[in-house]
């Protein structure tokens, strides 16, 4: 056995990982859906302007909507057919958003952008950023921030490390694991383009040590590149949090209110890296993504390649449907994922998983009074005092919330997870963050 030096951060929690349901299942293509729904707002920043209208015939890969704004990534058709509507639909992030609906029809042959197929060294950083933007690539780990924006290093800053996040610390999810096993070379290839785009000298891939096969696969894929290192990190939640991963791998603290680039780092998810490679080598826009569908409430948990815009009901069907009575359908993992009311919501660029918990698994929680046990303080990877933040948020003490650094909360859920009084700590902290943000906005608007 080889002893690995295991990188880690302080605090955090150890939830049951439950990855065994799907970690051995190869990524499979799901059957072609009859209809797809592409929301025009998938991330913070500008909403996109549609460039197609009802009754238009579109090809697979064709541009559907774009924006002049810098903080925006275009969306493309993941299905050839007819645009049936441009209307508001329920969004997986809550609320309703404008979306393009397409009904399947005609030749499903993909339309690829023309690419020079050049090696990273033969391209300028700007050319790579342009290609990434055109392909509509955003972060695929969850937040869906446009990748080309992350890669644009502001004047006066420089990036020395490009980190690929292969931690996959969310329980149940296995898609990043499968990508690393099955598409390790693509991930390393994407990393090389990302390094070139940011002019980073060193590439780092961080993987939790519960995935030794992925560590091995990426080490061999990266073996020929001297400036790419694959490192094991401790299996601990939230190891895949950007700030935790940077702390673990480089022992650098991202400043409060700052970004990784303030400490010379850009972090991208493994799926994003693979998508970057596909866009630069093959000219493929981001129109499909692999995801995990899993949980005790699913008959055949697995990993599937899914066209973006596919209603989650179709993915559930492809995985054998519900096992027993479904209680919760969650997009993402159990720690940070969002519970859904409708099965009509589409898979979007950041949908890394669909988790179905059965009704029997759900427990009713009746919060007891806080007894100051400090388990939340001992769990918080951001060194906050969640119990205090909860009270301050309830009392709308905005100045105090800021003093206690509420905006530094990454909403990882570790505090709520360990709370013996079962208090909804993160929930109130989110409320507090929203109140502080709203006040900042109104102050800016008023001046």
């Amino acid at each position, binding site marked *: 056995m080889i002893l690995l030096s295991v990188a880690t951060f302080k605090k955090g*929690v150890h*939830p*049951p990982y439950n990855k065994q349901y799907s970690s051995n299942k190869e990524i499979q293509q799901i059957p072609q859906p009859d209809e797809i729904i592409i929301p025009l707002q998938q991330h913070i920043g500008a909403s996109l302007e549609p460039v197609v209208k009802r009754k238009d015939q579109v090809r697979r890969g064709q541009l559907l909507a774009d924006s002049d704004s810098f903080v925006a990534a275009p969306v493309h058709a993941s299905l050839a057919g007819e645009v049936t509507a441009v209307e508001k639909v329920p969004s997986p992030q809550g609320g309703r958003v404008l979306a393009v609906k397409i009904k399947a029809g005609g030749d499903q042959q993909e339309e690829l952008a023309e690419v020079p197929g050049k090696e990273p060294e033969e391209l300028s950083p700007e050319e790579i950023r342009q290609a990434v933007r055109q392909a509509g690539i955003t972060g695929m780990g969850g937040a869906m921030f446009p990748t080309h924006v992350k890669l644009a290093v502001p004047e006066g800053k420089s990036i020395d490390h490009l980190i690929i996040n292969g931690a996959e610390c969310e*329980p149940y999810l296995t898609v990043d694991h499968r990508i690393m096993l099955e598409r390790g070379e693509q991930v390393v290839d994407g990393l090389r383009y990302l390094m070139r785009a940011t002019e980073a000298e060193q590439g780092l891939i961080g993987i939790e040590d519960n995935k030794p096969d992925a560590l091995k696969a990426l080490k061999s894929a990266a073996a020929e590149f001297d400036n790419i290192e694959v490192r094991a990190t401790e299996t601990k939640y939230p190891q895949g949090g950007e*700030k935790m991963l940077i*702390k673990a791998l480089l022992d650098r*603290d*991202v*400043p*409060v209110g700052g970004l990784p680039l303030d400490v010379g780092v850009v972090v991208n998810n493994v799926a994003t890296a693979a998508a970057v490679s596909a866009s630069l080598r093959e000219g493929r826009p981001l129109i499909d993504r692999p995801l995990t569908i899993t949980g005790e409430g699913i008959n055949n948990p697995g990993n599937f390649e899914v066209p973006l815009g596919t209603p989650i009901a179709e993915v*559930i*069907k492809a995985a054998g449907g519900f096992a027993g009575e*479904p*209680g*919760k*359908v*969650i997009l993402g993992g*159990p*720690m*940070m*994922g*969002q*519970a*859904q*009311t409708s*099965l*009509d919501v589409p898979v979007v660029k950041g949908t890394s998983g669909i*988790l179905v*918990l059965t*009704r029997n698994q759900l427990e009713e*929680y009746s919060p*007891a*009074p*806080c*007894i*100051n*046990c*400090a388990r939340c*303080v001992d769990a918080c*990877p*951001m*060194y*906050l*005092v969640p*119990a*205090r933040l909860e009270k301050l948020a309830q009392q709308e003490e905005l100045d105090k919330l800021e003093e*206690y*650094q509420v905006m*530094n909360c990454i*909403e990882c*859920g570790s505090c*709520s*997870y*360990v*709370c*013996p*009084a*079962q208090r*909804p700590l*993160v929930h109130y902290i989110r409320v507090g963050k929203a109140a502080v943000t709203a006040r900042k906005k109104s102050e800016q608007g008023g001046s």
Partner: protein
Amino acid sequence: MQSQELVVTSSPHLREETSVAEIMWTVNISLVPVMLAASYVFGLRALAIIAVSIISCSLTEYIFLRARNKEVTLTDGSAVVTGILLALTMPPAIPLWVVAIAAVVAIALGKQVFGGLGNNPFNPALIGRAFVTAAYPVLITTWTFDGQTAATPLNLKMMEGEITPYWDLFIGNIPGSLGETSAFLILLGAALLIYKGYLNWRIPAGMLTTVFLLTWLMGHDPVFHLLAGSLLLGAFYYATDMVTTPITPRGRWLFGVGAGVFVVIIRLWGGYPEGVMYSILLMNMTVPIINRFTRPRSLGEVN
């Protein structure tokens, strides 16, 4: 696909199993050896005191919760914790009616008037004990051992300058309150709580280290001061009451050190031979300000 009624709550969707009740009952279980030792050393009378204290605390809690129109949460075990901790501060010859009064005061004035579990600033058991110390000063300082009136090790030290052998202190073959006899059994119970993660080790570490170093510096016997009186019981069980102690890591150190300083001041220069109760109650008062000034620096926060 038909859309069933799905449950929607905000994340996280996973919770650890630990509950407040589990923490409280584990504390109770960890005190069983100490209670058994008390009944071995002082006879069945010790069990009677413990029973009266638990029943009176629970009854008071029940009446107040009903009167306040609150859900009756006796099963959370917190009133039983107070009952046991109060009983362990009592001398074996105390009349049972005094125990009952102390229990009513502990729960009513120590806990419920502040809004019940989680809201009380002072350790309720120590409030009950402090009341008895003020109201029945003779009864609370009458120590018996083997049916005879006897002086506690700290009394002997204060009055006669006599030091009780360490081994007797460690094993518990000495006069004293119900819970302050055996250092060994207290450490055993505390070890269980530390193992389960239900005990803030920083507080006893700070408190015991402070008492050891200060008494040593002052030219006294530090080992005697560690083992005698209610210091170990106080440091591991009363000074670590979650509700009434700081929530921040540095705050817990400060709380322990502060309590240790008060113990030494009272023991060496005060009118009482023992000062653990008052030192903890005094430090309880400082918890809000300690919490405020020991807020951890958040990751990436400068200065």
